[in-house]
């Protein structure tokens, strides 16, 4: 027996030829799934073609998802999406999703069982870390990395140190995975986990669902982390068992595994959070945020962070029978077509539209300032997305406040930053 290992070290070790690994080692890791989107893959494809080997490593291990500007917002973005489509045709890529089947990559891949527990996933998108929620090692890389992986099925990685984050106890009403992760980033800062793996555990996660885990892993990158992983359990099993089309492995950290830091939080003490412009670390309690009387022009509910059916249900619960404030826009974007259909079936679309919201097709849309809800100069949005950098959602003088879907819905009703208890 070697030294005790973390879940992250175990997964990496099983994907390399080395007999042992330690944090800081640079290794060549075999990749189970490689992902690209309509922004990052066109550069990757160009670089791939320049290598000149004319074959991909495995057509069944590549996912290409046009989601950022699709349905295309303009001619240039249509050309980018076309590059993806042509490449997918040429190499018969198994997981290519045409507009109509496509949703936001990080919601779509888990939903379809394409990424699974124990996988090593690299994606040319920073929020690839989302899949850590399933107990895989998943990390965001650049386009050149993706090009290399498309050719060789492996990639250089530095084995990360891990920070263990333990949330204990039952969370309060309206407190979701979003609040826990915003609270954490508020404590450790946007660089608090740079180059490291965040490993989440604790009794709190028995009270929350898979969607909360996805939200938390999704925002690991907002603390600079390389990945954000959960040990898989019965909640993971219930989520993956009917979706998986191949075998998967549950890894667990060994007792005595080494962590660079261990952080303990009492979830019962945490309130809904709002992160103020222009960094996700500027988080504060909803009571403090609403006391500042900040009016909003727009509220956005969607994205790979909070665009799942659970998020739409919570928002609808608050909006039911109510109207959003005059001169305020509420934009709701389900993350995938399946979520869209569920929302339709459950009557959620009616609730949103009756309240005065716009219900969009699945797309990243305004999350990255793409389209479908761009802010004008000086405008303010509250948003269930993951980044509030300067100009992220539009004009460089606009502002984005990050919150959970319940807070976004309540704020839309009052036209200012408010908590669910202010409207129910």
């Amino acid at each position: 027996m070697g030294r005790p290992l973390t879940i992250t070290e175990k997964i990496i070790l099983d994907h390399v030829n080395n007999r042992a690994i330690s944090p800081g080692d640079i290794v060549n890791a075999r990749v189970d799934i490689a992902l690209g989107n309509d922004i990052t893959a066109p550069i990757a494809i160009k670089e791939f073609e320049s290598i000149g080997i004319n074959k991909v490593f495995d057509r069944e291990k590549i996912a290409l998802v046009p989601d950022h500007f699709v349905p295309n917002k303009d001619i240039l973005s249509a050309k980018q999406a076309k590059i993806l489509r042509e490449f997918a045709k040429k190499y018969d890529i198994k997981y290519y999703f045409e507009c109509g089947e496509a949703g936001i990559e990080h919601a779509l891949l888990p939903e379809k069982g394409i990424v699974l527990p124990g996988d090593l996933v690299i994606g040319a998108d920073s929020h690839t870390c989302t899949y850590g929620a399933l107990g895989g090692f998943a990390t965001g890389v650049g386009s050149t990395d993706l090009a290399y992986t498309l050719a060789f099925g492996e990639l250089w990685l530095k084995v990360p140190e891990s920070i263990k984050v333990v949330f204990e106890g039952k969370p309060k009403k309206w407190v979701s995975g979003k609040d826990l992760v915003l609270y954490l980033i508020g404590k450790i800062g946007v660089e608090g986990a740079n180059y490291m793996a965040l490993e989440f555990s604790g009794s709190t996660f028995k009270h929350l669902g898979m969607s909360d885990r996805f939200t938390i892993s999704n925002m690991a990158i907002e603390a600079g982390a390389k990945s954000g992983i959960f040990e898989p359990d019965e909640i993971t099993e219930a989520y993956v068992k009917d979706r998986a089309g191949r075998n998967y492995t549950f890894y667990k950290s060994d007792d005595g595994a080494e962590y660079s830091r261990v952080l303990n939080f009492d979830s019962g003490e945490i309130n809904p959070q709002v992160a103020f412009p222009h960094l996700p670390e500027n988080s504060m309690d909803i009571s403090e945020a609403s006391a500042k009387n900040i009016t909003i022009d727009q509220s956005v509910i969607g994205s790979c962070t909070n665009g799942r059916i659970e998020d739409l249900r919570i928002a609808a619960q608050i909006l039911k029978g109510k109207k959003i404030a005059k001169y305020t826009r509420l934009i709701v974007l389900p993350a995938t077509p399946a979520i869209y259909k569920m929302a339709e079936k459950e009557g959620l679309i009616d609730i949103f539209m009756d309240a005065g919201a716009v219900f969009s097709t699945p797309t990243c849309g305004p999350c990255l300032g793409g389209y479908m809800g761009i802010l004008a100069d000086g405008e303010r949005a509250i948003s269930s997305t993951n980044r509030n950098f300067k100009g992220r959602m539009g004009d460089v003088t606009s502002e984005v406040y990050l919150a959970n879907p319940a807070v976004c819905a309540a704020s839309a009703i009052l036209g200012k930053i408010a908590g669910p208890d202010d409207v129910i």
Partner: protein
Amino acid sequence: MVFSGKVFKFGDNIDTDAIIPARYLNDSNDENLRIHCMEDADGMFSSRVSEGDCIVAGNNFGCGSSREHAPRAIKACGVSVVIAKSFARIFYRNSFNIGLFILEADTDGINDGDVIEINTDTGEIKNKTENSIIKSKPIPKFMSELVNAGGLIAYAKKKIKGGKA
């Protein structure tokens, strides 16, 4: 190699949306990226920067998105090197992968407009304006191999030629 250039100084947490805003990501050609480089941090950057100049920043440079368009935009402007107290992880690897030279160092002693000289072999940064010397952090061996090969793709081509792939 020795580079010398004028400094454009930025603060902490310069994110990839500031380096190249998403509104320009519907096109990935170098000229588009060059024109809009650093636009949301300094609207005049691309018109003022000239070949060989340096970007110097505080902590967490390049945080946020994985978009490789960010280091590519900087490279397209002719910037010779980016020096920061620290880099966000994906920006760091992207820069090496595309052959953009970046260094980690204490940048407090470098000001906007200073002229600096960088020796990439010794990692020494000479501030010619302040007449001071700053040591940068050494680059891991594998990373310098990547840069010397001309980036990851050039490295891959070598690998194929060597019959190892």
